[in-house]
C-alpha cells in the first residue's frame, strides 16, 4: 500500500488527485492547502509520497527541503502548472524526488507516484546537460553577457555561442533572448 499526502491550495485539484489516486489503487491519506500545513500533516501521517504543488502559499523550493528534513525518507513529487524543464533541475537540487506538470495524464501521475515511492527519481523533463553547459547556464542566470562568460571560463566568445546553441536546442528555446530570460527567471 502506497500512502500519499496531497498538498495543493485548489480544492478542485485536491479532489481530482484523490480520486485519480484511489482509482489507481494508491491510498490518499490526507490533504493540506499550504506548504506549512503540508509539512505539519506529513510529520503526523508519515506518508510514503507527498504530492506537492509548487505555486501554493508556502510551496516554494526551500519548503521542499524543510519537508524532507522534517520527515526523513518521505518522497516528494512536485506538481506544477508550469512545464519549464529548467525548473526541473532546480527542483532536483532542492530535494524533490520527482516532478510532473499538471497537464500529465492520470497514467503518468500513477507511474510517477509509484516510481517515487520506490526511490526511483522521476524527472521526465530533466534535460541532459554536460557540466560545461550547466556552468554556462549558471553564468547566464547570473546575468553575464557572452563576452563575460567567455572571460570567466577562459574560452572564446565563439565557443560560448556554440554552447548557447546547444542549450537552446536542449531546452526548446526559440531564441537566445528566450534562453536568457528563462535562465534569469529561475535564478
Amino acid at each position, binding site marked *: 500500500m502506497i500512502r500519499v499526502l496531497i498538498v495543493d491550495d485548489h480544492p*478542485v*485539484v485536491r479532489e481530482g488527485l484523490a480520486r485519480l489516486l484511489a482509482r489507481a489503487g494508491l491510498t490518499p491519506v490526507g490533504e493540506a492547502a499550504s506548504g506549512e500545513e503540508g509539512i505539519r500533516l506529513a510529520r503526523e501521517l508519515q506518508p510514503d509520497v507527498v504530492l506537492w504543488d509548487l505555486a501554493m502559499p508556502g510551496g516554494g523550493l526551500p519548503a521542499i527541503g524543510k519537508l524532507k528534513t522534517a520527515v526523513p525518507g518521505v518522497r516528494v513529487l512536485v506538481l506544477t502548472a508550469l512545464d519549464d524543464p529548467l525548473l526541473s533541475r532546480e527542483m532536483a537540487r532542492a530535494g524533490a524526488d520527482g516532478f510532473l506538470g499538471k497537464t500529465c495524464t492520470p497514467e503518468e501521475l500513477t507511474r510517477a507516484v509509484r516510481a517515487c515511492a520506490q526511490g526511483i527519481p522521476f524527472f521526465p523533463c530533466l534535460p541532459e546537460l554536460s557540466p560545461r553547459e550547466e556552468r554556462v547556464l549558471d553564468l547566464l542566470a547570473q546575468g553575464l553577457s557572452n563576452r563575460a562568460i567567455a572571460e570567466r571560463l577562459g574560452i572564446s566568445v565563439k565557443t560560448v555561442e556554440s554552447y548557447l546553441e546547444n542549450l537552446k536546442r536542449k531546452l526548446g528555446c526559440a531564441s537566445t533572448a528566450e534562453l536568457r530570460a528563462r535562465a534569469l527567471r529561475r535564478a
Partner: protein
Amino acid sequence: MHVRAVVVDDHPVVREGLRALLSEAGVEVVGEAADGRAALAVVREVRPELAVVDVALPGLSGIELCRRIRRRLPQVQVVLISMFDEPAWRAEAARAGAAAYLLKGMAPAELVEAIDRVVKGERLLSEEEEADKVLPLTPREREVVQLIAQGKKVSDIARILSRSPATVRAHKASAMRKLSVHSTAELVRTALELGLVRVPEVTGG
C-alpha cells in the same frame, strides 16, 4: 431536470475534480476537452446544457471559447473557472456571456452551490456590475453616457434627468476623464466596448 455538462481544462486532474463537484450538483459530465477547438467540436456534438471552462487554455482562450459557444449555441450556459480573481477578466467574462466566473480556490461547497444556481437559470455575472468594478462610473454618469449613446443632446438630457445642462456637462466630463477619452464619439464607442451602456435599440421607421 437532468443536466449534462462538458468540462474544458488542460489539466486532467482538474477535469477529474470538476467531474466530482458537478456530480454533487446533480450534473453529469458527458464530454471533456483539453483545449478550445476540441471543446467546440465536443459541445456541438453532445449539446450539453452546461459547459465548464478554464479561463487559461492553450490556443483559444477560455473567454473566447465562451464567446463562441454563447454565440453559436446560446442554449448552452457557460461557467468560467479561473485561478485568479481579476476584475478585468470578470468583466470580460460577463461581456462574453458567461453565467458565472468561479475561482479554483473556492471551497467545494461554494462551487457546487454556484453551479446549482446557474443550472437553475440564475446568472451570477452582471455586465454592468463587473464593468463598474473595473471603471466605476457613478449611476448618474452612466445615465448621461447612455443617453448620449442614444444620440441625445445635452439640453435634452438635462430635461430628461431634471438637471441643469451644466450638471449634465459635468457628469459627461467626469465620465470622459475616467475613461481617458477626448471626444464624444470616443466616449460612446469606449462605453459600448466596455459594456457600460447598452447598444441603443433601433425601433422601426
